[in-house]
Protein backbone atom coordinates (compact mmCIF):
# COMPACT_ATOMS: atom_id res chain seq x y z
CA UNK A 1 0.00 0.00 0.00
CA UNK A 2 1.10 3.50 -0.72
CA UNK A 3 1.72 5.52 2.42
CA UNK A 4 0.29 8.66 0.86
CA UNK A 5 -3.45 8.12 0.93
CA UNK A 6 -4.31 11.74 0.21
CA UNK A 7 -5.57 11.76 -3.33
CA UNK A 8 -8.62 11.07 -5.40
CA UNK A 9 -8.28 9.71 -8.89
CA UNK A 10 -10.92 9.71 -11.62
CA UNK A 11 -10.72 6.64 -13.86
CA UNK A 12 -12.24 7.18 -17.31
CA UNK A 13 -12.63 4.13 -19.53
CA UNK A 14 -15.56 2.86 -21.54
CA UNK A 15 -14.74 -0.83 -21.15
CA UNK A 16 -16.08 -2.18 -17.87
CA UNK A 17 -13.34 -4.80 -17.71
CA UNK A 18 -10.56 -2.26 -18.06
CA UNK A 19 -12.31 0.24 -15.82
CA UNK A 20 -12.88 -2.13 -12.93
CA UNK A 21 -9.31 -3.37 -13.19
CA UNK A 22 -7.98 0.19 -13.03
CA UNK A 23 -10.28 1.19 -10.20
CA UNK A 24 -9.13 -1.79 -8.21
CA UNK A 25 -5.46 -1.19 -8.99
CA UNK A 26 -5.65 2.48 -8.00
CA UNK A 27 -7.43 1.62 -4.76
CA UNK A 28 -4.70 -0.88 -4.11
CA UNK A 29 -2.22 2.03 -4.22
CA UNK A 30 -4.12 3.70 -1.40
CA UNK A 31 -6.00 6.34 -3.34
CA UNK A 32 -9.69 7.04 -3.47
CA UNK A 33 -11.32 6.46 -6.83
CA UNK A 34 -14.17 7.87 -8.87
CA UNK A 35 -15.09 6.42 -12.26
CA UNK A 36 -16.68 7.52 -15.50
CA UNK A 37 -17.48 5.53 -18.64
CA UNK A 38 -16.76 8.24 -21.18
CA UNK A 39 -15.45 11.77 -21.55
CA UNK A 40 -18.87 13.38 -21.22
CA UNK A 41 -19.47 11.67 -17.88
CA UNK A 42 -15.97 12.55 -16.73
CA UNK A 43 -16.39 16.26 -17.47
CA UNK A 44 -19.77 16.23 -15.72
CA UNK A 45 -18.12 14.76 -12.62
CA UNK A 46 -15.26 17.24 -12.72
CA UNK A 47 -17.68 20.14 -13.04
CA UNK A 48 -20.06 18.80 -10.41
CA UNK A 49 -19.95 18.68 -6.65
CA UNK A 50 -16.85 16.83 -5.54
CA UNK A 51 -15.11 17.63 -8.82
CA UNK A 52 -12.72 19.88 -6.96
CA UNK A 53 -11.52 16.91 -4.88
CA UNK A 54 -10.20 15.09 -7.93
CA UNK A 55 -6.41 15.21 -7.95
CA UNK A 56 -5.67 13.27 -11.15
CA UNK A 57 -7.47 11.75 -14.10
CA UNK A 58 -6.58 8.42 -15.73
CA UNK A 59 -7.97 8.81 -19.24
CA UNK A 60 -8.60 6.23 -21.94
CA UNK A 61 -8.51 7.59 -25.48
CA UNK A 62 -10.93 5.45 -27.52
CA UNK A 63 -14.39 6.07 -26.10
CA UNK A 64 -17.88 6.62 -27.45
CA UNK A 65 -19.75 9.89 -26.72
CA UNK A 66 -16.65 11.95 -26.07
CA UNK A 67 -13.21 10.51 -26.68
CA UNK A 68 -10.07 11.08 -24.67
CA UNK A 69 -8.58 13.69 -27.00
CA UNK A 70 -11.62 15.93 -26.85
CA UNK A 71 -11.96 15.41 -23.10
CA UNK A 72 -8.34 16.41 -22.64
CA UNK A 73 -8.74 19.42 -24.91
CA UNK A 74 -11.77 20.65 -22.98
CA UNK A 75 -10.07 20.16 -19.62
CA UNK A 76 -7.06 22.17 -20.72
CA UNK A 77 -9.31 24.92 -22.07
CA UNK A 78 -11.12 25.22 -18.75
CA UNK A 79 -9.32 27.42 -16.20
CA UNK A 80 -10.86 25.44 -13.34
CA UNK A 81 -9.65 22.09 -14.68
CA UNK A 82 -6.44 23.06 -16.44
CA UNK A 83 -4.25 22.24 -13.45
CA UNK A 84 -5.66 18.72 -12.87
CA UNK A 85 -3.03 16.23 -14.07
CA UNK A 86 -4.22 13.89 -16.83
CA UNK A 87 -2.54 10.52 -17.31
CA UNK A 88 -3.33 8.97 -20.69
CA UNK A 89 -3.89 5.22 -20.83
CA UNK A 90 -2.45 3.88 -24.02
CA UNK A 91 -1.45 0.64 -25.66
CA UNK A 92 2.29 0.01 -25.34
CA UNK A 93 2.67 0.13 -29.10
CA UNK A 94 0.79 3.39 -29.64
CA UNK A 95 3.29 6.11 -28.81
CA UNK A 96 1.96 8.41 -31.55
CA UNK A 97 -1.20 9.00 -29.53
CA UNK A 98 0.86 9.56 -26.38
CA UNK A 99 2.98 12.21 -28.04
CA UNK A 100 -0.11 13.96 -29.36
CA UNK A 101 -1.69 13.97 -25.89
CA UNK A 102 1.45 15.23 -24.15
CA UNK A 103 1.48 18.08 -26.67
CA UNK A 104 -2.12 18.79 -25.73
CA UNK A 105 -1.18 19.07 -22.06
CA UNK A 106 -1.38 15.54 -20.69
CA UNK A 107 0.99 15.04 -17.77
CA UNK A 108 2.04 11.46 -18.42
CA UNK A 109 0.90 8.16 -19.84
CA UNK A 110 0.22 4.69 -18.54
CA UNK A 111 0.99 1.89 -21.00
CA UNK A 112 -1.48 -0.99 -21.03
CA UNK A 113 -1.06 -3.70 -19.88
CA UNK A 114 0.39 -1.94 -16.84
CA UNK A 115 2.03 -3.20 -13.69
CA UNK A 116 1.78 -1.99 -10.12
CA UNK A 117 5.17 -0.29 -10.08
CA UNK A 118 4.47 1.83 -13.18
CA UNK A 119 1.01 2.79 -11.93
CA UNK A 120 2.45 3.80 -8.56
CA UNK A 121 5.18 5.89 -10.15
CA UNK A 122 2.79 7.67 -12.53
CA UNK A 123 0.22 8.44 -9.86
CA UNK A 124 2.63 9.66 -7.23
CA UNK A 125 4.44 11.94 -9.70
CA UNK A 126 1.20 13.46 -10.95
CA UNK A 127 -0.27 13.87 -7.50
CA UNK A 128 2.89 15.51 -6.24
CA UNK A 129 2.63 18.01 -9.10
CA UNK A 130 -1.00 18.63 -8.29
CA UNK A 131 -0.25 19.00 -4.60
CA UNK A 132 2.45 21.54 -5.37
CA UNK A 133 0.11 23.41 -7.65
CA UNK A 134 -2.60 23.46 -4.97
CA UNK A 135 -0.13 24.83 -2.44
CA UNK A 136 0.93 27.49 -4.87
CA UNK A 137 -2.67 28.47 -5.49
CA UNK A 138 -3.41 28.61 -1.77
CA UNK A 139 -0.33 30.72 -1.26
CA UNK A 140 -1.31 33.11 -4.05
CA UNK A 141 -4.83 33.37 -2.70
CA UNK A 142 -3.52 34.08 0.79
CA UNK A 143 -1.14 36.69 -0.53
CA UNK A 144 -3.94 38.44 -2.35
CA UNK A 145 -5.99 38.35 0.83
CA UNK A 146 -3.10 39.70 2.84
CA UNK A 147 -2.50 42.50 0.37
CA UNK A 148 -6.15 43.44 0.47
CA UNK A 149 -6.06 43.49 4.27
CA UNK A 150 -2.98 45.69 4.27
CA UNK A 151 -4.58 48.08 1.81
CA UNK A 152 -7.76 48.20 3.84
CA UNK A 153 -5.81 48.75 7.04
CA UNK A 154 -3.74 51.57 5.66
CA UNK A 155 -6.89 53.19 4.27
CA UNK A 156 -8.42 52.87 7.75
CA UNK A 157 -5.23 54.04 9.37
CA UNK A 158 -5.23 57.15 7.23
CA UNK A 159 -8.30 58.30 9.14
CA UNK A 160 -6.38 58.17 12.40
CA UNK A 161 -2.89 59.16 11.38
CA UNK A 162 -1.54 61.91 9.28
CA UNK A 163 -1.49 60.64 5.66
CA UNK A 164 2.31 60.80 5.55
CA UNK A 165 2.60 58.58 8.60
CA UNK A 166 -0.04 56.16 7.30
CA UNK A 167 1.91 55.86 4.05
CA UNK A 168 5.08 55.32 6.03
CA UNK A 169 3.63 52.45 8.02
CA UNK A 170 2.81 50.48 4.88
CA UNK A 171 5.92 51.30 2.84
CA UNK A 172 9.19 49.42 2.43
CA UNK A 173 11.49 52.13 3.71
CA UNK A 174 8.98 53.09 6.40
CA UNK A 175 10.28 50.54 8.84
CA UNK A 176 13.73 52.15 8.98
CA UNK A 177 12.22 55.61 9.45
CA UNK A 178 9.97 54.35 12.24
CA UNK A 179 13.04 52.99 14.00
CA UNK A 180 14.16 56.57 14.62
CA UNK A 181 16.26 59.13 12.77
CA UNK A 182 17.48 62.73 13.03
CA UNK A 183 16.22 65.37 10.69
CA UNK A 184 15.94 69.11 10.36
CA UNK A 185 12.30 70.04 10.82
CA UNK A 186 10.08 73.04 11.30
CA UNK A 187 7.82 72.51 14.28
CA UNK A 188 4.54 74.41 14.61
CA UNK A 189 2.69 74.43 17.89
CA UNK A 190 -0.69 76.10 18.24
CA UNK A 191 -3.18 76.38 21.04
CA UNK A 192 -6.05 78.51 22.17
CA UNK A 193 -5.98 81.41 24.58
CA UNK A 194 -8.76 81.27 27.14
CA UNK A 195 -9.50 77.62 26.45
CA UNK A 196 -8.91 76.37 29.99
CA UNK A 197 -11.35 78.88 31.41
CA UNK A 198 -13.83 78.09 28.66
CA UNK A 199 -13.61 74.34 29.26
CA UNK A 200 -14.30 74.77 32.96
CA UNK A 201 -17.53 76.65 32.40
CA UNK A 202 -18.85 75.34 29.07
CA UNK A 203 -21.35 72.53 28.69
CA UNK A 204 -19.70 69.38 27.29
CA UNK A 205 -21.74 69.72 24.07
CA UNK A 206 -20.51 73.27 23.55
CA UNK A 207 -16.96 72.31 24.42
CA UNK A 208 -16.85 69.43 21.95
CA UNK A 209 -18.71 71.44 19.35
CA UNK A 210 -16.06 74.16 19.47
CA UNK A 211 -13.22 71.63 19.44
CA UNK A 212 -14.68 69.79 16.47
CA UNK A 213 -15.02 72.97 14.44
CA UNK A 214 -11.55 74.11 15.39
CA UNK A 215 -9.86 70.76 14.74
CA UNK A 216 -11.69 70.24 11.44
CA UNK A 217 -10.63 73.68 10.18
CA UNK A 218 -7.03 73.30 11.31
CA UNK A 219 -6.71 69.66 10.21
CA UNK A 220 -7.80 70.66 6.72
CA UNK A 221 -5.06 73.28 6.51
CA UNK A 222 -2.42 70.85 7.80
CA UNK A 223 -3.27 68.53 4.92
CA UNK A 224 -3.43 71.39 2.43
CA UNK A 225 0.04 72.65 3.31
CA UNK A 226 1.61 69.20 3.55
CA UNK A 227 2.37 69.19 7.26
CA UNK A 228 2.64 66.09 9.39
CA UNK A 229 0.18 66.26 12.25
CA UNK A 230 1.87 64.79 15.27
CA UNK A 231 -1.08 65.14 17.58
CA UNK A 232 -4.16 66.99 18.65
CA UNK A 233 -4.44 67.29 22.42
CA UNK A 234 -7.56 69.26 23.24
CA UNK A 235 -6.82 72.71 21.91
CA UNK A 236 -3.12 72.00 21.41
CA UNK A 237 -1.85 70.98 18.03
CA UNK A 238 1.68 69.98 16.96
CA UNK A 239 2.53 69.88 13.28
CA UNK A 240 5.95 69.39 11.76
CA UNK A 241 7.31 69.81 8.27
CA UNK A 242 10.04 67.98 6.31
CA UNK A 243 9.42 64.58 7.87
CA UNK A 244 8.68 61.82 7.02
CA UNK A 245 8.14 63.39 3.57
CA UNK A 246 10.82 65.93 2.62
CA UNK A 247 9.30 69.39 2.04
CA UNK A 248 11.16 72.04 0.05
CA UNK A 249 11.19 75.36 1.95
CA UNK A 250 9.62 73.70 4.96
CA UNK A 251 10.12 76.84 7.11
CA UNK A 252 8.15 78.95 4.62
CA UNK A 253 5.50 76.32 4.17
CA UNK A 254 5.04 76.17 7.96
CA UNK A 255 4.64 79.95 8.21
CA UNK A 256 2.17 80.01 5.32
CA UNK A 257 0.11 77.38 7.09
CA UNK A 258 0.19 79.30 10.37
CA UNK A 259 -0.97 82.49 8.68
CA UNK A 260 -3.78 80.59 6.94
CA UNK A 261 -4.76 79.06 10.29
CA UNK A 262 -4.88 82.46 11.92
CA UNK A 263 -7.15 83.69 9.12
CA UNK A 264 -9.42 80.68 9.48
CA UNK A 265 -9.49 81.06 13.22
CA UNK A 266 -10.62 84.67 12.96
CA UNK A 267 -13.67 83.58 10.96
CA UNK A 268 -14.50 80.95 13.60
CA UNK A 269 -13.89 83.39 16.37
CA UNK A 270 -16.44 85.86 15.07
CA UNK A 271 -19.14 83.21 15.27
CA UNK A 272 -18.01 82.03 18.67
CA UNK A 273 -17.87 85.56 19.94
CA UNK A 274 -21.59 85.95 19.26
CA UNK A 275 -22.19 82.93 21.45
CA UNK A 276 -20.15 84.56 24.18
CA UNK A 277 -16.98 82.51 23.90
CA UNK A 278 -13.79 84.46 24.32
CA UNK A 279 -11.03 82.49 22.65
CA UNK A 280 -7.74 83.50 21.02
CA UNK A 281 -5.26 81.68 18.81
CA UNK A 282 -1.51 81.57 19.38
CA UNK A 283 1.25 79.90 17.40
CA UNK A 284 4.94 79.14 18.01
CA UNK A 285 7.29 78.08 15.22
CA UNK A 286 10.85 76.83 15.58
CA UNK A 287 13.39 75.20 13.28
CA UNK A 288 16.00 72.65 14.31
CA UNK A 289 17.04 69.03 14.40
CA UNK A 290 14.78 66.53 16.10
CA UNK A 291 14.73 62.80 16.60
CA UNK A 292 11.72 61.33 14.85
CA UNK A 293 10.22 57.91 14.82
CA UNK A 294 7.98 55.56 16.65
CA UNK A 295 7.45 56.46 20.25
CA UNK A 296 5.23 54.82 22.80
CA UNK A 297 4.92 51.27 23.98
CA UNK A 298 3.72 47.89 22.77
CA UNK A 299 0.11 48.25 21.71
CA UNK A 300 0.05 52.01 21.44
CA UNK A 301 2.58 53.83 19.31
CA UNK A 302 2.69 57.30 17.89
CA UNK A 303 4.93 58.82 15.31
CA UNK A 304 6.59 61.60 17.19
CA UNK A 305 9.31 64.23 17.22
CA UNK A 306 11.59 64.78 20.19
CA UNK A 307 14.04 67.64 20.59
CA UNK A 308 14.61 71.21 21.67
CA UNK A 309 12.92 72.41 18.48
CA UNK A 310 9.61 70.95 19.66
CA UNK A 311 9.98 72.39 23.14
CA UNK A 312 10.90 75.77 21.66
CA UNK A 313 7.78 75.78 19.44
CA UNK A 314 5.62 74.86 22.44
CA UNK A 315 7.13 77.57 24.66
CA UNK A 316 6.75 80.20 21.91
CA UNK A 317 3.11 79.21 21.53
CA UNK A 318 2.55 79.66 25.27
CA UNK A 319 4.26 83.02 25.05
CA UNK A 320 2.12 84.20 22.09
CA UNK A 321 -0.70 86.59 22.76
CA UNK A 322 -3.99 86.00 20.93
CA UNK A 323 -3.41 86.36 17.20
CA UNK A 324 0.40 86.17 17.39
CA UNK A 325 2.61 83.81 15.42
CA UNK A 326 5.97 83.77 17.17
CA UNK A 327 9.11 82.62 15.38
CA UNK A 328 12.43 81.54 16.81
CA UNK A 329 15.51 83.35 15.46
CA UNK A 330 16.36 80.53 13.08
CA UNK A 331 12.79 80.26 11.78
CA UNK A 332 12.63 84.00 11.21
CA UNK A 333 15.93 83.99 9.34
CA UNK A 334 14.57 81.41 6.93
CA UNK A 335 11.36 83.32 6.14
CA UNK A 336 12.51 86.92 6.37
CA UNK A 337 11.77 87.54 2.67
CA UNK A 338 8.32 86.02 2.95
CA UNK A 339 6.88 87.78 5.95
CA UNK A 340 6.22 91.15 7.37
CA UNK A 341 7.71 90.66 10.82
CA UNK A 342 8.17 92.56 14.00
CA UNK A 343 10.70 91.92 16.70
CA UNK A 344 9.34 91.13 20.15
CA UNK A 345 12.83 91.41 21.61
CA UNK A 346 14.57 88.85 23.75
CA UNK A 347 12.23 86.59 25.68
CA UNK A 348 13.03 84.24 28.57
CA UNK A 349 11.49 80.85 27.92
CA UNK A 350 11.10 78.11 30.48
CA UNK A 351 13.86 75.50 30.07
CA UNK A 352 16.16 77.81 28.09
CA UNK A 353 19.04 79.24 30.05
CA UNK A 354 19.31 82.48 28.07
CA UNK A 355 16.66 84.81 26.67
CA UNK A 356 16.02 84.18 22.97
CA UNK A 357 15.21 86.70 20.23
CA UNK A 358 11.61 86.30 19.05
CA UNK A 359 9.72 87.69 16.03
CA UNK A 360 6.00 87.95 15.39
CA UNK A 361 4.53 87.43 11.93
CA UNK A 362 2.29 90.35 11.16
CA UNK A 363 1.44 89.04 7.75
CA UNK A 364 2.80 87.70 4.48
CA UNK A 365 4.32 90.03 1.91
CA UNK A 366 1.77 90.72 -0.83
CA UNK A 367 3.34 88.71 -3.65
CA UNK A 368 3.93 85.68 -1.47
CA UNK A 369 0.43 85.48 -0.03
CA UNK A 370 -0.77 82.56 -2.16
CA UNK A 371 0.07 79.12 -0.71
CA UNK A 372 2.82 77.29 -2.56
CA UNK A 373 2.30 73.58 -3.16
Amino acid at each position, binding site marked *: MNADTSGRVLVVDDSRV*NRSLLVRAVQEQGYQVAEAENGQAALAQLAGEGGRDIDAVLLDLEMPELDGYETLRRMKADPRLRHVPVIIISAVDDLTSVVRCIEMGATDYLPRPFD*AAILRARLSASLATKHLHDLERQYTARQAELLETIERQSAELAHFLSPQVAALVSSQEGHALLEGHRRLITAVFCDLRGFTAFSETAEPEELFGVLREYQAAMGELVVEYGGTLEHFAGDGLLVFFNDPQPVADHEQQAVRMAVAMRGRFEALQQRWHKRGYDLGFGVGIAVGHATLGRIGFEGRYDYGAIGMVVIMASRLSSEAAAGQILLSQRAFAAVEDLVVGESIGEVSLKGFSRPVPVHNVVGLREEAAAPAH
Partner: protein
Amino acid sequence: MPDEVLDEAILGNLLETVGGDRTFLAELVEAYLGDSPGLLEAMRAGLRADDRTALRRAAHTLKSTSASLGATAFAALCREVETNALEAEPAWLDEHITAVAGAYEPVATALNERLGGATA
Protein backbone atom coordinates in the same frame (compact mmCIF):
# COMPACT_ATOMS: atom_id res chain seq x y z
CA MET B 1 5.90 -15.70 -26.98
CA PRO B 2 3.01 -15.30 -29.40
CA ASP B 3 2.30 -19.03 -29.46
CA GLU B 4 1.52 -18.92 -25.74
CA VAL B 5 -2.18 -18.12 -25.24
CA LEU B 6 -1.59 -16.23 -22.00
CA ASP B 7 1.51 -14.23 -21.09
CA GLU B 8 2.61 -15.47 -17.66
CA ALA B 9 4.57 -12.32 -16.85
CA ILE B 10 1.49 -10.18 -17.41
CA LEU B 11 -0.66 -12.52 -15.32
CA GLY B 12 1.86 -12.15 -12.51
CA ASN B 13 1.71 -8.35 -12.73
CA LEU B 14 -2.05 -8.48 -12.88
CA LEU B 15 -2.26 -10.43 -9.66
CA GLU B 16 0.10 -7.94 -8.02
CA THR B 17 -1.81 -4.85 -9.16
CA VAL B 18 -4.98 -6.11 -7.47
CA GLY B 19 -3.16 -7.05 -4.30
CA GLY B 20 -3.33 -10.80 -4.91
CA ASP B 21 -7.10 -10.83 -4.92
CA ARG B 22 -7.97 -13.92 -6.98
CA THR B 23 -11.68 -13.54 -6.36
CA PHE B 24 -11.59 -10.15 -7.97
CA LEU B 25 -9.69 -11.54 -10.97
CA ALA B 26 -12.25 -14.32 -11.33
CA GLU B 27 -14.98 -11.68 -11.48
CA LEU B 28 -12.95 -9.72 -13.99
CA VAL B 29 -12.55 -12.79 -16.22
CA GLU B 30 -16.26 -13.41 -15.92
CA ALA B 31 -16.97 -9.87 -17.11
CA TYR B 32 -14.52 -10.34 -19.97
CA LEU B 33 -16.11 -13.62 -21.02
CA GLY B 34 -19.51 -11.96 -20.79
CA ASP B 35 -18.55 -8.98 -22.98
CA SER B 36 -16.27 -10.53 -25.61
CA PRO B 37 -18.82 -12.51 -27.69
CA GLY B 38 -20.81 -9.28 -28.03
CA LEU B 39 -17.70 -7.45 -29.25
CA LEU B 40 -16.97 -10.17 -31.83
CA GLU B 41 -20.54 -9.87 -33.01
CA ALA B 42 -20.25 -6.06 -33.14
CA MET B 43 -17.19 -6.45 -35.40
CA ARG B 44 -19.12 -8.68 -37.81
CA ALA B 45 -22.18 -6.42 -37.68
CA GLY B 46 -20.03 -3.39 -38.35
CA LEU B 47 -18.57 -5.05 -41.42
CA ARG B 48 -22.01 -6.10 -42.71
CA ALA B 49 -23.46 -2.61 -42.26
CA ASP B 50 -20.22 -1.03 -43.48
CA ASP B 51 -20.06 0.89 -40.19
CA ARG B 52 -16.28 0.88 -40.04
CA THR B 53 -16.10 3.12 -36.98
CA ALA B 54 -18.24 0.69 -34.97
CA LEU B 55 -16.08 -2.17 -36.25
CA ARG B 56 -12.92 -0.38 -35.28
CA ARG B 57 -14.16 0.49 -31.80
CA ALA B 58 -15.24 -3.09 -31.05
CA ALA B 59 -11.85 -4.36 -32.23
CA HIS B 60 -10.13 -1.75 -30.08
CA THR B 61 -12.03 -2.68 -26.93
CA LEU B 62 -11.47 -6.40 -27.42
CA LYS B 63 -7.79 -5.68 -28.05
CA SER B 64 -7.28 -3.64 -24.90
CA THR B 65 -9.23 -5.86 -22.50
CA SER B 66 -7.51 -8.95 -23.89
CA ALA B 67 -4.12 -7.25 -23.50
CA SER B 68 -4.95 -6.34 -19.90
CA LEU B 69 -5.67 -9.99 -19.11
CA GLY B 70 -2.45 -11.24 -20.69
CA ALA B 71 -3.92 -12.58 -23.96
CA THR B 72 -1.13 -10.83 -25.82
CA ALA B 73 -1.17 -12.80 -29.09
CA PHE B 74 -4.94 -12.56 -29.33
CA ALA B 75 -4.77 -8.81 -28.68
CA ALA B 76 -2.31 -8.51 -31.60
CA LEU B 77 -4.88 -10.12 -33.93
CA CYS B 78 -7.52 -7.68 -32.73
CA ARG B 79 -5.13 -4.82 -33.23
CA GLU B 80 -4.58 -5.78 -36.84
CA VAL B 81 -8.31 -5.51 -37.47
CA GLU B 82 -8.51 -2.25 -35.53
CA THR B 83 -5.72 -0.50 -37.43
CA ASN B 84 -7.09 -1.58 -40.84
CA ALA B 85 -10.77 -1.22 -40.02
CA LEU B 86 -11.31 2.05 -41.89
CA GLU B 87 -9.42 1.31 -45.11
CA ALA B 88 -9.20 -2.44 -45.72
CA GLU B 89 -11.23 -4.39 -48.30
CA PRO B 90 -14.31 -6.16 -46.89
CA ALA B 91 -12.87 -9.54 -47.90
CA TRP B 92 -9.66 -8.87 -45.98
CA LEU B 93 -11.61 -7.79 -42.90
CA ASP B 94 -13.96 -10.77 -43.14
CA GLU B 95 -10.98 -13.11 -43.21
CA HIS B 96 -9.31 -11.46 -40.25
CA ILE B 97 -12.44 -11.17 -38.12
CA THR B 98 -12.94 -14.89 -38.66
CA ALA B 99 -9.37 -15.46 -37.50
CA VAL B 100 -10.03 -13.40 -34.35
CA ALA B 101 -13.20 -15.35 -33.64
CA GLY B 102 -11.34 -18.60 -34.11
CA ALA B 103 -8.60 -17.55 -31.70
CA TYR B 104 -11.04 -16.45 -29.03
CA GLU B 105 -12.11 -19.90 -27.80
CA PRO B 106 -8.63 -21.00 -26.64
CA VAL B 107 -8.26 -17.62 -24.83
CA ALA B 108 -11.58 -18.06 -23.05
CA THR B 109 -10.68 -21.61 -22.04
CA ALA B 110 -7.21 -20.61 -20.80
CA LEU B 111 -8.53 -17.66 -18.79
CA ASN B 112 -11.18 -19.83 -17.21
CA GLU B 113 -8.62 -22.42 -16.25
CA ARG B 114 -5.99 -19.99 -15.09
CA LEU B 115 -8.02 -17.27 -13.36
CA GLY B 116 -11.63 -18.44 -13.41
CA GLY B 117 -13.90 -19.08 -10.43
CA ALA B 118 -12.69 -22.70 -10.04
CA THR B 119 -9.27 -21.57 -8.77
CA ALA B 120 -10.66 -18.96 -6.39
